[in-house]
């Protein structure tokens, strides 16, 4: 898990304005079994999805500690996208259901802190759903682009 902490550090890459368009910082936490495979499939079938996402592969969405999501936002992420197996498909039996519960609670918390709920998304994307992966990521990034930068990083100044 310490490893993952380091990985989320990637997010603090400073925002650049190489383009007029807003390029959000987006962390994608995907499970090794289904969503990563779907992302892989999207890749090999040359489905284009936004380059803004920084994908972190985890063994299971059930291992996502909500703390890492909070930390991502504090350190400047504009959105966190989580992709896991469909209910019942989880390699680890029910890790995805655990994730759903935890993220449900976390969403309420983040909302209370002024983070729009759309900035944190959990989707079930099966291994063969490359197009679904593309669609969800696209929609998510579009949504974040519309919302604009998160500004939550200010909270980190104490």
């Amino acid at each position, binding site marked *: *898990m*310490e490893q993952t902490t380091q990985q989320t550090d990637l997010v603090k890459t400073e925002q650049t304005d190489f383009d007029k368009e807003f390029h959000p910082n987006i962390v994608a936490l995907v499970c*090794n*079994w*289904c969503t*990563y*495979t779907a992302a*892989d*499939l999207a890749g*090999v*079938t*040359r489905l284009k999805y936004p380059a803004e996402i920084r994908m972190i592969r*985890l*063994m*299971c969405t*059930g*291992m*996502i*500690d*909500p703390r890492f999501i909070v930390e991502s936002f504090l350190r400047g992420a504009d959105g966190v996208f989580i992709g896991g*197996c*469909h209910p*019942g*498909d*989880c*390699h*680890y*039996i*029910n*890790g995805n259901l*655990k994730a759903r519960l*935890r993220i449900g609670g976390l969403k309420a918390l983040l909302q209370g802190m002024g983070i729009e709920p759309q900035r944190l998304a959990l989707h079930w994307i*099966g*291994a*063969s*759903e*490359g*197009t*679904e992966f593309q669609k969800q990521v696209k929609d998510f990034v579009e949504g974040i682009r519309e919302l604009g930068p998160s500004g939550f990083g200010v909270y980190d100044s104490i």
Partner: protein
Amino acid sequence: MSKPGRFVVAGAGISGVRASLDLAETGHEVVLLDTAPVSGGILLALDRQFPNDHCGMCRMLPMLDRDQSKYFCMRLGMFHKNVTFMPNTEIKEIGGGPGDLKVLLQSWSAKVDPDLCNGCGDCLEVCPVSLPDDLADSLSLRKAIFKPGPNTSPSTLAIDPDSCILCGKCKEVCQTGAITLGPDYEQTLEEKVTAVIMATGVEYFDPGDASMYGYGKYADVITSLAFERMLSSSGPTQGRILRPSDGAPAENIAWIQCVGSRNLRLGADHCSGACCMFALKQAGLSMEKGSRPTIFYMDMRTFGRDWQKYLDRASSSGLRLVRCRPHSLEARNGGGLMLSYSPVPGELIDEHFDLVVLSVGRAPGWKGPDFSDQDGVLVTGGSKRLLDISRSLVSASSVSFRAAMISGSPVQAEQGDSITSQRVKVKSKVLVVGGGPAGLSASLALAGQGISVVIVEKNDFLGGNVSQISDAEARERIRELVRDAEKNQDIEILLKSRPMEFSGTTGNFQTHVLDQQNKGPIIEHGAVILASGGSQSTLPASLVHPKVMTVFDLHRRLDDPEIKEKDLNCLVFIQCFETRTKEKNYCSRLCCPTALRSVEKIRSTHPESRIIFFYRDIMTPGDLEHLYTRARELGAIFIPYQTDIPPKLILEKEQVVVEGFDPYLGEEVKFKADLVGLGSGLGPGSGHELAELFGIRVDREGFLIEADPKWRPVDSGREGIFICGLARNPVSLDEAVDEGRAAAQRAMRLVYNPQARMSVSTARIRPALCSMCGLCWTVCPYFARYPGSKGAMEVDPLACQGCGACVAICPNHASVLEVQGD
């Protein structure tokens, strides 16, 4: 101890993969080959499978010593250190004898170097050859150079040697120089092969050959396999259900069952065994996408574990089921099809459907050379009989175990590992609870590999309750198993005993076994196999009558001279008697075959008697279908009934009357029966008790629940505890024996090596930080946690799969995932 064996497994479908992994996990070397360019077989095309609409194929990956295999989605391929996969390969010749076979393999040249190909697809655009795509069952076209699976790893393309015209255009555009159109094939000789396992699978009926239901003429008539691809988001329609004729959304969809199976005209006197469930699944998934499905069926064969419940779920969510074989199909102007069918005599209905799916039957389909008669060549059940996923896996494990037995005793720990991993001592002893067919076959299999076994049996005899009700032939087979077990020195038998206390961790369990005087040993064992069996359901007291009995009793009683000589004018069988309904909602599998077998017996002594069957669905999957055909030939009359109007039994002193409704005659019928056989089913034995003791799950009906109904059929949720036979689900004798062996195989992989290797990535507890709050205990899906004696939780290292659920729930990070040697 001996050296590892070397095995060739032909066919990299699910059976072949299972058999290979089984052998690989117990230290053997395997060459796995397939005529296709990728592994996976038919399952590459099926995104989700019944009876739960989930995938989870990855769950069949090794759970112990996981670092030997690559750990990701099995659709990408299968990798294990001990398995060499040879694509585009078939067996040419087999020589020599068991233990020392010489196998000549012939491989087509891949023509595309997987190391160089990056899957860019430039070649796809220039290839001039177009042909129907097998994977999509002709729903779409592909080129002669093509992607062999939706996502395979490495993501290489392949050239189909049959359709390639060697024009060389692909070679010109390939930027990595991966394409060589060189020699056609090469041969390899595998020597000193211990055994060959044929897992060559089945073939699907081609309705075009028999020009059935306008297949091939009407674009909107497709096979169930094509529909499967239509459901898949990686398929030709990206998961939308469309009419192939005009691309309009398909709303009304009909499934026609038994196309190419259960068809005497086509000489197909067999049931394909899985199409009913396949269609139910497809119909269910199509409903999620807004379609209105109708299934036209003959018998809804929901004979497997939880299948009946699956059917109930589908029908309660709006699926329409029509029992009839549609008469004909016509294309309609403006798209779609007109289906004519006659659900009851005299009534003809024309109905419009957008799409008609033919549930094509399967048949054993290996067209290559047949080596099955050769010594040392074993054939998996999946290629002989028509099985669903879980039975295929059970059969594959069973066969792989038999193959391993050829090599003799098991393989010991090899030295000099590349991976530095810790080892856990395990006890090379297995406790088997239950001395019925499943338990006995498991015990004999393990003992044959030199593992000592303790059988705990509650009765004062071996053979199980079911041996009491089986027919003479089955009883003889069970007696043989009993004799073998009693002779075997590695098997200790404790009669009139039961396990009382159970503790320990995977590989190091302790079970206190007590006899009737409440005395007995504490057995230390590495694994436990629960095969506590079951028995036939007892009839309610209100039905006690000399002329009424279960079909099993009736079948046995037919051998009695007293019955043989008696006048039997009329025998009535009532199938699914108080089963497949609310209280006992499962099919017992054995009642139908047993009752049908009785018909032949009755005919031999009473050629003139009337034999009436009241039935809901005759469950004769696979070759058992001929029993049904035979019974009809012998003049048995079959009357279907609905659960809301079951036939009535009226018991009088001297006689029994059965009243029911015959939908074909459209009227009430009444029979004075001389004997009534009730298909009242089988039930589990002491499942609840055992489940509680061993901490595993049990279903409403008392059957033990497996870790995964498809991929881990004989594993309980807890590593080291395995389940098989009637304690798990109703099975035939053959199946019980297979399940026993499969369970033995699963136990074997745990105990064959007294120094089991931990996986590199497992959870660990930092005891100083642990508050013993038990959150990790609750979230652990593998029962790999227990409160330790030192005031901190502890991890069962062999059971832990490294999922990290405990890490995420522990607020304190007292639970961490650790990667050793990294």
